[in-house]
């Protein structure tokens, strides 16, 4: 049973881990919000509790960065940590998520949203 769970976890994490890369080098807030792989909030963790620098082992939905902490993967917002070696490929908005239209937001926000970015392998 235990082996089966391990295999299942490995299978689930493998695609995300394949996208991962880089390192979390610094926490930017004294307390950090944590999430699961699907983006659901799991609470807060103290920055002092994290052993940094830590390799990024997985990328969560929406671009959260997963690091190994206490035997499990903890997902953090990119906003709360300083990373190195995470290269994102982002498209300008006109060729990305938002269809070109007549409105300002549709055609003009060159940076687009997080959904326009994909971490590079």
């Amino acid at each position, binding site marked *: 049973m235990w082996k089966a769970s391990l295999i299942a976890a490995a299978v689930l994490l493998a695609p995300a881990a394949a996208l991962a890369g880089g390192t979390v080098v610094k926490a930017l807030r004294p307390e950090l919000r944590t999430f699961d792989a699907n983006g659901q909030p799991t609470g807060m963790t103290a920055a002092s509790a994290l052993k940094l620098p830590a390799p990024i082992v997985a990328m969560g939905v929406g671009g959260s960065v997963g690091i190994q902490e206490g035997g499990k993967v903890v997902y953090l*917002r990119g*906003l709360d940590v300083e990373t190195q070696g995470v290269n994102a490929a982002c498209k300008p908005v006109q060729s990305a998520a938002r269809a070109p239209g007549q409105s*300002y937001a549709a055609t003009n926000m060159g940076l687009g949203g997080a*959904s326009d970015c994909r971490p590079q392998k």
Partner: protein
Amino acid sequence: MLIAGRVLKALLVSLLLALSAYVVAKLDLFGLESASDRVADQVYQRVTAADYGPDRRGQRAISVVYLDETSMQAMRSFGWDRFPPTYDQQWTMLDDLMNVGGAPPSAIYVDFVYTGQGGPDPGVGAFISGVAAATRANQWSARPGCLSDPLVKIACIVAAGGTPMIFAKPSPIDAPGFTDVQRRLNAVAVLAPALVGEHAYPLAIHYDLTPTAAANSGVSAFDVSPAMAMYAAWCLRRADGCHLPTIAGLKARARAALAGQATAEPTEVTREFTAPLDVVWGSRPDPDYLAMTRNVTGQAAPCRGEGAGWRDRLIEQLATLRGPGAGARQECPYALTLGYDRMVAGLGLQRSDLQRLLAGRMVMVGGQFRASNDWVESPVHGQAPGVQYHAMALDNLIEDGADYRRVSGDLFDSDLLKSLLVAALAFCGVMGVMTRNTLLDRARARGAEARLRARTYAPLYLLIFSISLSVVAGATWLGVVYAHRAPINWIGITIVALGFLFYATRETLPADIVGSIEHLPWVNKGLMGMRAAKRALKFEEDRLWAHRSPTAEPDRSNTEETSRHVES
């Protein structure tokens, strides 16, 4: 005596025309006059947009952080699984803006109207207490001197070392009374009317409310618009106080109020800020925005770059682009603009980018939801979100201070100016035509009529028409640059002036032009053909003439002479 009589006649004609123009402007039939005024303003702005803010003072101070449908979708990845987000989530956003730049912003404006929770939302307490901590409300909220008006409240927040947070509220006229959340928010922050649907951007807003109604709506003496509130915060942080006596007074009053010494008298908003702002839209993209886009996407921003100067833009508006640019010509946002979801994900953004966006900046937070009605028609950018409108208004104030571009509304208003201009142009036009007739009389007496036509009339007409156009252009430019007024209706005045000139010279101008070239054989042939065509097309008029006077065929050779005497 003859000259005096002619001048008097020209004066009467021009005043009559000006009076007609004034009446037409005031009647504003079918809204044509005001629509025409707006078009003139918009075209002027499109032509001069690239010349706005050459030193980028406002651009260096203002940032926009937005949420839109795509952002909300992306934020589902961080637990934002409902719309609107919970108060707790929204406080998380504001807390991020306060902290992730390395230093807090100078002030934050939130362009969301909080009316209260639709259901149980335990986060509202955290939201209010978070805002209170940011504004240091514990130091000023119990001081009566800090609550007498919104400007002194902002001054107290700054003096207490807090970050002014300005939240949008509905106008007390549209939605009288505060909800419980608005009342709690008003106790720890500043609320400013959101101004949805406004054409002229007010700065200080005085209402005619009873004391009870004002108290219920949280109006202390007057309201200030979001841009004015942010501008006051910006000036209060500057040592020179933007050289405004009001700001110097506010600083002193805030210090005294925090020490418990102030009276509760409201700030006297100086005359400089009573007239509404005619928001001027710039087109130079923020260099930080362009650099950030290139760093993140590896490509140039998909919008127009630095752009051309006013000459190119004038030609562009005349020839091809008769409106705001679209596609490759779509203007970039003037202020540094970033989606909150992009900040949260952090992918591709450096810490220095967030510092540039937030630390010490005037941060405007707002929605760009396509389904909302919070959009304005920008003459330069096309459809723009309301938060960009507030940001641009703030930029205008930072760039121009008390010399901001005003919307006319006084007794000596734009319509009166336009009418006076029409009178001046008509006077010059009539005098020009009279001069032409005098020259003709003298030339005929000397027998030099033919030479006069070629050598004198062409420059004369050219002078009359070019002076008219130059006077309109000059008056428009002077009004904008030195009187700080919205541009006059230069399109309408040009059309009226040219129409009048063509009418006044409707007989003499063609006669003079043709007379100077009729010795050419092909012109002569053409003239014969035209006369034949004219005869053929005038059969109905001839029939009418025949009924009135069966014997007399009008002598066409005297037409020019007759008209000349009429005009003299």
